[in-house]
């Protein structure tokens, strides 16, 4: 996207809280934004690097739990007579920690992905997420298990001269999510259009060939996994401090599926694909809410997945770009439909 349309979009998105007053709609947009960040992060691993990682929700949840625990403070019984007391820290510390811890989990997955490929990797990543869920459920001392972590503090900004601003209301949370979303987009865009991004794509397209020209497979698989996980962790942190409750259900496989649907429908391996997918599948449930029960909606989403795979295998964004390219075919050289590198 070139400068001016992008700027226009950003201005438009920034203006939304000014004319959308309905609190419920804002809530939907905030959720959509959080999912967009998670979907973009998954796209880096699934779309660009071609890794069949289906445990993504683990990074999201780990980011959420870490951020929540650090801002709430916790006690950990390490030995019969020794209890580690961790005092509550400011939310931004928790948020950054969530990103860091999620990134570490990403490192583990990255290392694993090198040894284990294809269908096996899918299984490993799904199992990994399930194990994390079970730990969250059972390590009640730390995570409160199914009773959930409650009363998570919202984000607090110290504004010089104006005192402290606490994000209780929807509007500031919207802007926070928007900022993180734009930042994530920028980070991913920069990475993808660089030598590192080309290495990711090379691994996806033809790994032996990539190796033969000097691409260090492990290094770039791990890099993609770490950054992907870190961004997902950021999304999780945003979630924790907005919804203010975190329970083990955050690790449900269905949320990974939602992210996968968003990425695949929007267009994996493109920058805008996951965003488009997030918008569609963030807003669609609300639109269908009146008309169809949740189960029926999910059946529809299942069908959409199947239809996309059969008819628009590259997703909506590349299909739209191809269509646009065909329409403007007489004009000069145009950008490629698929963001290769």
């Amino acid at each position, binding site marked *: 996207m070139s400068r001016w349309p992008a700027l226009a979009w950003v201005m438009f998105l920034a203006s939304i809280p000014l004319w959308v007053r309905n609190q419920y709609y804002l809530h939907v947009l905030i959720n959509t934004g959080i999912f967009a960040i998670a979907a973009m992060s998954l796209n880096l691993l699934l779309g660009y690097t071609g890794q069949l990682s289906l445990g993504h929700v683990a990074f999201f949840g780990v980011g959420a739990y870490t951020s929540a625990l650090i801002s709430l403070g916790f006690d950990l019984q390490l030995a019969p007579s020794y209890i580690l007391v961790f005092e509550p820290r400011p939310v931004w510390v928790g948020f950054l920690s969530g990103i860091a811890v999620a990134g570490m989990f990403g490192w583990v997955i990255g290392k694993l992905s090198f040894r284990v490929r294809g269908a096996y990797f899918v299984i490993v990543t799904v199992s990994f997420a399930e194990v994390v869920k079970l730990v969250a459920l059972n390590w009640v001392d730390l995570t409160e298990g199914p009773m959930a972590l409650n009363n998570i503090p919202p984000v607090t900004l110290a504004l010089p001269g104006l005192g402290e601003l606490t994000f209780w209301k929807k509007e500031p949370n919207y802007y926070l999510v928007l900022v993180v979303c734009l930042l994530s987009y920028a*980070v991913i865009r*920069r*990475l993808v259009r*660089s*030598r*590192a991004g*080309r*290495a990711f*794509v*090379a691994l*996806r*397209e*033809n790994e*032996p*060939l*990539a*190796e*033969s*020209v*000097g*691409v*260090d*497979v492990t290094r770039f698989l791990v*890099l993609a996994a770490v*950054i992907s996980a870190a961004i997902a962790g950021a999304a999780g942190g945003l979630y924790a401090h907005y919804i203010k409750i975190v329970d083990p259900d955050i690790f449900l496989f269905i949320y990974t599926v939602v992210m996968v649907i968003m990425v695949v429908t929007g267009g994996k391996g493109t920058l805008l694909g996951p965003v488009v997918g997030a918008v569609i599948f963030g807003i669609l449930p609300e639109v269908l809410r009146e008309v169809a029960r949740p189960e029926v909606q999910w059946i529809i989403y299942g069908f959409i997945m199947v239809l996309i795979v059969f008819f628009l295998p590259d997703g909506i964004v590349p299909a739209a770009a191809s269509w646009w390219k065909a329409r403007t075919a007489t004009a000069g*050289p145009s950008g*490629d439909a*698929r963001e*290769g*590198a």
Partner: protein
Amino acid sequence: MNAPAAVLAVEGVEVRFGGLVALSDLSFAVREGEVASLIGPNGAGKTTAFNVITGFLRPAKGRVRYRENFLTGLPPNQVAEQGVVRTFQKTSVFGGIPVFENVLIGLHRRGRARPWEILLALPLVRREEKRLREEAMGILSFVGLAHRREELGAALPYGEQRLLEVAVAMAAGPSLLLLDEPVSGMNPSETAGFMKIVEKIRGRGITILLVEHDMRMVMGVSDRVVVLNQGRIIAEGSPAEIQRDPEVIRAYLGQGAKRAAC
């Protein structure tokens, strides 16, 4: 005047697949700046030899030396770092992305930008990108694919895909280039065109080791020929010498000639 030094030395390499001996005590050398060809009937072990040299396969015995370093035990990407780059027998390009991007990926080790430098969008990154893009255009012109730069790799006709393979390999900046059956499937005019490219590559001082079945090509470009059969070297010498060697003739016509005689 001294003969050029050997840059690539394959020493006593043995490869087994289960009970099958694919390569047996393989030893040969390639001298700096020359074009050497590895020929032999199908299944003789030529691609296996390539795989060993470039780190895709570990030999059971023996080692490979390039200049002062040992290549055996290095992963393929580090072999490439040493300046040894190969192409593959089965057409191997980055199919889903444009030709230009293919070559850019080939330029991977010619770039040094690190992830954190990329994320901070330091000016050096932008300068490097510009340089790499210019180089990529140069390489595409070198093989004659500049007019195809926007096409997807998989969309190219067969002959041009093979040219793209060479372009990607050249982009990696090799000092030793291993070409695995580069003209297989090409028609005579494409083959002739390719032979000119081999000469151009040699003109840049790059040493070339070639695996090929097309004898016209082999005899036309090679300084030396090494003949493999059933995992061992049966002859070595200039193209003219090889053509007259009875062992070589027997290996190629082999069983048929024997049986016909019985």
